[in-house]
């Protein structure tokens, strides 16, 4: 019979797929450019003209690095319709993103990239907005700030980093923000403190702020929502819970909004920050912490072992680029 006996739980053959992986005829989604902002954060520019045309601020993609990889949701940091590219900014924190940091170079390709997913941010009639980005949220807030600027709004950018060495895209933000407040944890650049301090400063200076948009780690978005709540300023946050398919099919990304369950992938990712149950979200982000730890340790150990054979990896890298 065709398939009994020899099958493993993987059930996969080794042949390349006969179907097309995307609009391009080649294999996967080519990485055309990369820039390292720091030893953990890097920018990838991926060739995908159709997606560059379709993408709107606030949407995200799901990528898979290789055929054993997991599906990783990443907010779109920028898109260039003329060049036909989509920009992602990745923070290497877990196994998969560290592996990306190691493997994703110009000339290589992602195994899969699908999107743009989620509902685009509503860039409405607000006349004066604060766009807040912290940590991995700095990049995705950029297209929103630019969109607000294009709509003619007065844009105040508030971006937070741990220290001055981690700052990136300051010039890009300056171009589209009427004011830019940089916050660093150690005070090495801009004001010392968290982005909430920046928000408070902006609110103190402007009494007519219509909207705050905050993207970043849940704890930061929660703090932003709490900072604006007493002022009654509409606050939009972009949630990034654990997902599998990103098309509304698995329900893994469900979040509590005003006590009701919503799927971040199809109902979001943007929600009213004052309605979001952030504690629930943060708990759900810990769902796989044991597995994440295990995967990271195992991977680090593998890398260490490979490094023991001197220079093999670096030589290969040179050969490729």
């Amino acid at each position: 019979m065709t398939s009994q006996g020899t099958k493993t739980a993987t059930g996969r053959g080794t042949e390349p797929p006969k179907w097309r992986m995307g609009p391009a005829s080649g294999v996967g989604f080519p990485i055309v450019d990369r820039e390292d902002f720091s030893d953990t954060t890097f920018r990838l520019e991926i060739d995908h003209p159709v997606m560059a045309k379709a993408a709107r601020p606030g949407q995200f993609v799901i990528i898979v690095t290789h055929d054993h990889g997991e599906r990783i949701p990443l907010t779109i940091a920028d898109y260039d319709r003329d060049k036909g590219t989509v920009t992602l900014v990745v923070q290497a924190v877990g196994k998969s993103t560290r592996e990306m940091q190691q493997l994703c170079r110009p000339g290589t390709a992602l195994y899969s990239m699908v999107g743009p997913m989620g509902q685009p941010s509503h860039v409405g009639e607000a006349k004066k907005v604060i766009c807040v980005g912290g940590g991995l949220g700095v990049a995705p807030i950029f297209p929103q700030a630019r969109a607000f600027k294009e709509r003619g709004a007065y844009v105040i950018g508030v971006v937070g980093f741990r220290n001055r060495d981690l700052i990136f895209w300051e010039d890009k933000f300056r171009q589209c923000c009427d004011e830019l407040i940089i916050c660093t944890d150690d005070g090495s650049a801009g004001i010392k403190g968290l982005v909430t301090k920046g928000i408070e400063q902006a609110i103190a200076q402007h009494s007519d702020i219509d909207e705050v948009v905050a993207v970043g780690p849940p704890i930061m978005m929660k703090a932003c929502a709490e900072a604006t709540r007493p002022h009654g300023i509409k606050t939009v946050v972009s949630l990034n819970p654990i997902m599998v398919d990103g098309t509304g099919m698995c329900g893994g990304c469900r979040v509590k909004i005003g006590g009701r369950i919503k799927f971040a992938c199809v109902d979001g990712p943007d929600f009213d920050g004052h309605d979001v149950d952030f504690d629930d979200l943060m708990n759900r982000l810990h769902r796989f912490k044991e597995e994440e730890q295990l995967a990271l340790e195992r991977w680090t150990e593998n890398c260490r072992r490979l490094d023991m054979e001197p220079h093999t990896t670096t030589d290969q890298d040179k050969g490729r680029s």
Partner: protein
Amino acid sequence: MAKKKTIRTIPQERAFMPVEAPEARVANFGEVVLGFDVENALVECERCLVCPEPACVAGCPVGIDIPGFICKMIDKDYRGAYDIISEANLLPAICGRVCPQEDQCEGVCPVGDTLEPVAVGRLERWVGDRAIEEGWHKRPYIEPNGFRVGIIGSGPAGVACAADLAKAGCAVTVYEALHEPGGVLRYGIPEFRLPNQVVDEEIGNLLDLGIEIQCNTLVGRLFTIEQMLDEMGYDAVFIGTGAGSPKFMEIPGETLNGVLSANELLTRCNLMVAGSFPEYDTPLHLGRRVAVIGAGNTAMDALRVSLRLGAEKVYCVYRRTETESPARVEELHHAQEEGIEFHWLTAPVEILDDGDGNVRAMRCVRMELGEPDESGRRRPVPIEGSEFEFETDMVVYAIGTNANPILGQTSKLKLNKWGYIETGEDLATSMAGVYAGGDIVTGAATVILAMGAGRRAARSIKEYLGIRDSDVVYRPERSGHEGALFGVNVAERNFARVRLA
């Protein structure tokens, strides 16, 4: 041919078919139902009475000429049998495995009035597997007719529609949002019931018809249906995106870690191979005691997957009884054999926290059956004061699905009040040239019903484009045209010619 067969002269018992022993199979993902060997397949064929007006053909959602292929098998013309089946169904190895035959062909088989009905599904599977082994798939010469059709979703509805349109000469592109094609056949149905290799083979047959499948493409977001018709040059579009969105019960504790939908569990295991973590990157975090809520086919799959992944205890929790369970008889039987504990007339009312954000237990209530509801089944009613704690650390919801919202959000398609796409009898939607079928129209159903809908939509699309439909010629009574002349629709203006290379 020998003397006419009667119910007395045919083999009284179904032919023997091996099934993996429960103790052995729960330890791996190998197939459970192993299929006939050739001798037993032929014995089973002898049980068919070859009725002159076969009820089974009418009972088959895709109208396979069942006595026809069985006669070919009796003549040992297995290739001929495959040709007959593949005329109506390009995925026999899949359908032979996953169709609920007891409600379809086998359910209406007259042999079943006194004996067990002819095992049509097992015979279909035998032919399908044989075809894969021998590489019989025919690559017909198809004369292109110049029309382009876009299909959204590579699940059963999409591929059935794609196959019929490709055979008629249309240039067909199938768009799939995930990174592998097959839809529910890929992410939903587990390996032990439908090996991925079988899906690969049968999808390969579609590619041989010249169909293009493009993965990683989320229609609605990457481009809209309107763009497909206006900018991308498609003459017609078929939507077969599936129902998708899993239902939750909206009881307290549902966002605790350890509560997930059966869709998520199955997708992690089947598509993402979480059972082989950490070789594969996707984790699952299986509980020790897994409770699956619901008793349909998806629930059976979730139960049996959890067991195979190593859960110590696996419970099926259902608010009605075994009689009302919507699962296929065979699946329910296999699950029982494998040692799954069934808790009938039980429903959760709250999921309890272990203090750390994980599931500790469920608070459940006992039910009794009251008056019949609109589905005709007796409505379960909670018994007052019967609440009890049910110890479990993973709760899997398999209580059905809602409509996937993406195409509704991104197009002007008319939806019904539940969010499913509204269509007419001919599966035409509110947009000209756009047809829909399968779960996104009917709500969650079966693989074969979705395939039937895909074929029906293909027929309508052919008519819309003015292509001759071979079914009209061969089955004039099915065409439904008043204006048919010699079985040919007078409205048609384009003739597709199909012949074997």
